[in-house]
């Protein structure tokens, strides 16, 4: 018999209390003169034998209660004590300790604690003549010490072991353990596998472990399996396996929605499971999900951030027996507010004829992160461009040379420039003035049909292609795409080919192949050219539902907020790759628990680090310890590791060969019920019957 918490055994002394009370209780009873003494005497005589029996039973029950509770707390368990003299005699032994995520499962007692106790027990039960070693099975397993007779280092290695957050390769560990026994002069070899037998960590389709004898012959070791899950059919578990973070402009500025995927790895359905949304550690939303048995479901929670910047968002499920995969984080960059200078090249007192009317309305709509400042051309040339994130030139005459230079500088240094054409745009003047900025030079204006013609609706040019994978075009799928493609264009500008050294993306083309939307990068900045007007003179785009999201996405893309920060997500055990900005020198990644991983700068400027040891949000710090907020990232547990489905002992026996596998300890067939549960049952029964006797 072994004890998990042996110091609780001291509590068994309490069993002496009833005896001591009986022996030393010298309380003087109250003396009462009583007239009906005869009746008392008669009653006492009548009940004496029954009372004696009752007192004896009470004494026994109380002693049993006081004995059973500390015994149960000391977590006793029966273990086979004949490992040392196994059926093959003395054997060189390697104990393999599973440290996979499954060992973090807990139903009050963490399986890993049970596993360590089992491994230590296995070592202690060996005879002194049997050499032994320990393999702590991690991602990179090594034998704790060479095969030997000294146990102290082996026990210390077991004490130092900690459970991981991923599935491990137990096959590799068993192979390593079998090879570590090759040097033994003893003919018998034994592997003691202490594991929860999760299918994700042990592949039964792989060949079973084999060792080599002194003459090189293959030896099949005896395998003793200590099942720390005590023969449980399953280790039920729920996990958050994915989160999709999306901007939700329909809910307001800086609003995001997070779609969590919940997986139930259990044979019974889970109902009303709470899912909390935490932003920077504070719970901001709650929801409930039902997940069918062995099923998956999704739940979307949304949140509107008070300000832009980097935020750590965590979804947290109601905890179950394995808490580590109940939380999933994402580090995201909430777009900051943008300031746009809208230069109106064709102002009009009639709003719907004003060139900037529709654009300004689109940029200022609810949920838009853009704050638009409207100026006519003359006033705009006096503005300080560096105060703006994006400049929109709407049907503007060619800017004067100094302004053209200022616009070029603005773009090169990271600004966004939007250009739409119209009757004020003279291609030659623009090419002369802004030739260095434009992605493609303007050629002529083509008229598909006069806007006032009676058949204008049918003869107007239409978009035939749209680059829907471009960030600007991502929302235009399904019916939204149809809406965009059905836009009528009466006139539009034609462009020449790409300027030398400039790469232009065409996001939309007419049925004649003419580009309508051109996107380009210059220096640190970006340009977007629309080949028609943003009022209703040349096209009906402004009155279409596509116009508003299109303009907001264009503004976002121009300022880099659509792809402002590449969201980095890594899995436990994988390497993370980060792209620092200029001047940043990330040195360490640090988890909330304090764990650190060194980062290495790669030749291309990227920074890598790993393998990442634990899940959760990580921050990146430079050599001076300053936090580089924008480089923060989240690490998640591989969903496969959360599946704790177990191998049956029968399947293991089949894999290892019936003649070589044995079960022992808490996982040994009928002895799978721990002794302490019986002791608790006995204590409860003793307490119950003691109460019954007292009441009678």
């Amino acid at each position, binding site marked *: 018999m072994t004890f998990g918490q042996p110091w609780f055994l001291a509590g068994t002394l309490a069993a002496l209390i009833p005896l001591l009370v009986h022996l030393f209780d010298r*309380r003087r*009873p*109250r*003396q009462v*003169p*009583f007239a009906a003494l005869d009746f008392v*005497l*008669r*009653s*006492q005589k009548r009940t004496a034998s029954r009372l004696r029996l009752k007192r004896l039973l009470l004494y026994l029950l109380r002693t049993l209660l006081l004995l059973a509770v500390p015994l149960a707390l000391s977590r006793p368990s029966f273990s086979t004590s004949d490992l040392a003299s196994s059926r093959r005699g003395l054997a060189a032994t390697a104990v393999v300790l599973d440290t996979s995520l499954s060992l973090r499962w807990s139903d009050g007692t963490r399986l890993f604690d049970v596993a360590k106790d089992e491994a230590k027990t296995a070592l202690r039960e060996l005879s002194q003549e049997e050499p032994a070693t320990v393999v702590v099975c991690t991602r990179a397993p090594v034998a704790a010490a060479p095969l030997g007779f000294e146990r102290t280092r082996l026990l210390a290695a077991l004490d130092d072991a900690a459970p991981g957050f991923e599935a491990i390769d137990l096959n590799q560990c068993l192979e390593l353990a079998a090879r570590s026994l090759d040097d033994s002069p003893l003919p018998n070899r034994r592997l003691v596998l202490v594991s929860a037998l999760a299918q994700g960590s042990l592949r039964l389709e792989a060949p079973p472990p084999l060792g080599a004898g002194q003459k090189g012959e293959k030896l099949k070791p005896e395998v003793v399996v200590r099942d720390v899950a005590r023969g449980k059919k399953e280790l039920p578990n729920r996990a958050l396996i994915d989160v999709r973070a999306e901007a939700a402009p329909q809910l307001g500025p800086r609003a995001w929605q997070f779609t969590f995927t919940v997986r139930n790895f259990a044979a019974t359905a889970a109902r009303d499971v709470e899912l909390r949304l935490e932003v920077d550690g504070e719970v901001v939303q709650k929801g409930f999900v039902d997940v069918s048995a062995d099923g998956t479901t999704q739940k979307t929670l949304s949140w509107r951030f008070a300000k832009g910047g980097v935020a750590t968002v965590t979804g947290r499920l109601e905890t179950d027996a394995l808490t580590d995969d109940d939380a999933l984080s994402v580090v995201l960059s909430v777009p900051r507010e943008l300031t746009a200078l809208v230069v109106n090249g064709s102002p009009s007192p009639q709003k719907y004829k004003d060139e900037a009317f529709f654009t300004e309305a689109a940029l200022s709509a609810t949920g838009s992160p853009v704050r638009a400042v409207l100026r006519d051309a003359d006033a705009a040339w006096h503005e300080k461009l560096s105060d703006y994130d994006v400049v929109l030139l709407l049907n503007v005459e060619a800017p004067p040379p100094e302004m053209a230079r200022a616009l070029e500088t603005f773009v090169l240094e990271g600004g966004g420039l939007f250009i739409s054409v119209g009757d004020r745009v003279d291609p030659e003047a623009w090419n002369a003035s802004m030739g260095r900025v434009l992605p493609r030079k303007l050629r002529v204006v083509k008229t598909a049909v006069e806007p006032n013609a009676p058949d204008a609706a049918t003869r107007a040019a239409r978009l035939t292609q749209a680059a829907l994978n471009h960030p600007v075009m991502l929302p235009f799928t399904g019916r939204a795409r149809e809406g965009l493609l059905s836009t009528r264009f009466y006139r539009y500008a034609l462009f020449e080919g790409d300027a030398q050294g400039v790469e232009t993306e065409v996001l939309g083309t007419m049925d004649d192949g003419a580009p309508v939307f051109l996107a380009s990068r210059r220096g640190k900045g970006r340009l977007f050219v629309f080949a028609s007007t943003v009022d209703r003179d040349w096209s009906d785009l402004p009155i279409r539902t596509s116009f508003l999201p299109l303009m907001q996405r264009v503004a976002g893309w121009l300022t880099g907020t659509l792809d402002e920060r590449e969201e980095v997500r890594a899995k436990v055990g994988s390497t993370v790759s980060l792209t620092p900005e200029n001047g940043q020198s990330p040195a360490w990644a640090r988890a909330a628990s304090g764990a650190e991983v060194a980062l290495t700068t790669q030749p291309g400027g990227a920074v890598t680090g790993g393998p990442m040891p634990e899940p959760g949000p990580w921050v990146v710090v430079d050599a001076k310890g300053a936090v580089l907020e924008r480089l923060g990232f989240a690490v998640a547990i591989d969903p496969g590791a959360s599946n704790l489905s177990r191998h049956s002992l029968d399947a293991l026996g089949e894999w290892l060969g019936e003649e070589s596998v044995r079960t022992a300890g808490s996982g040994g067939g009928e002895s799978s019920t721990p002794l302490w549960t019986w002791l608790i049952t006995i204590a409860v029964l003793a307490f119950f019957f003691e109460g019954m006797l007292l009441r009678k």
Partner: protein
Amino acid sequence: MLLDAATLSRIAGLKLRARAVVEGVLSGQHKSPHQGQSVEFAEHKEYAPGDELRHLDWKAFGKFDKYYVKRFEHETNLRAVMVVDTSGSMGFGTTGLSKLDVARVMAATLSHLLVRQQDAAGVALVAAGRFAEVPPRSAATHLQVVLGALETATAQGPTDLASAADTLAEKLPRRSLVCVFSDFFDEKQDALKRVLALRSRKHDVALFHLLDPAELLFPFEDPTLFVSMEDARQVEVNPREIRESYLEEFGRFLANTKDACRAADCDYELVRTDEPIDQALLRFLARRGGRL
């Protein structure tokens, strides 16, 4: 003071009547075994030789043409003896009054009632080896003697109701009312039988069974050393363990006592020392008044 003004006022309108026929030296309101000496007409009897001719009812002769003799009931005064048990157990009390206190007050009150209605009242204080008696008298001044005797009564010594009953049987030559105030905790098995045997001597016997609530309910909780009030016996018990058995035993004792009284045609009145004394007396007097 044994006589309580409130109690006396409550029973002022009542009279203690003998339930059975009693003999007295004076004429009173109780039935006498002797007929013919009274003015109270009782019944007609057909004339037989030897009957008093002066009792012939001539009016009946005129109506029925037969000789009828008038019979009269004789009424006499009542002799009553208050037998108060003064054994040690009567000194027990948890309500502020011992059983002896209650017995003395009840005996005094009944004596007062009897003397007031011109009946003779006496008292006998009994315990093992003790028998103090004040013979029944009907004089108003005699009440003070009775009260004085009751005042001096103290509870001590074992109970011996059997001997007291035998002594009373000898000392009461004529039919009398015998009121016994006791807890009847007598070791002698036939004590009650011998008390009730007074009934067979034509005495009117009324038993006042005085009990303390603690004896009836046994409310003790913690382990207790119970000490006898009549001898040196003592016993240590856990009251909670024997309560059920005690109540069972005591209930049987009460039932047996009551049944024995009913069988012997004697009055039985259970008196709890925590109830107002006048209530027990009122119950007793009302019952007797209702039957007469």
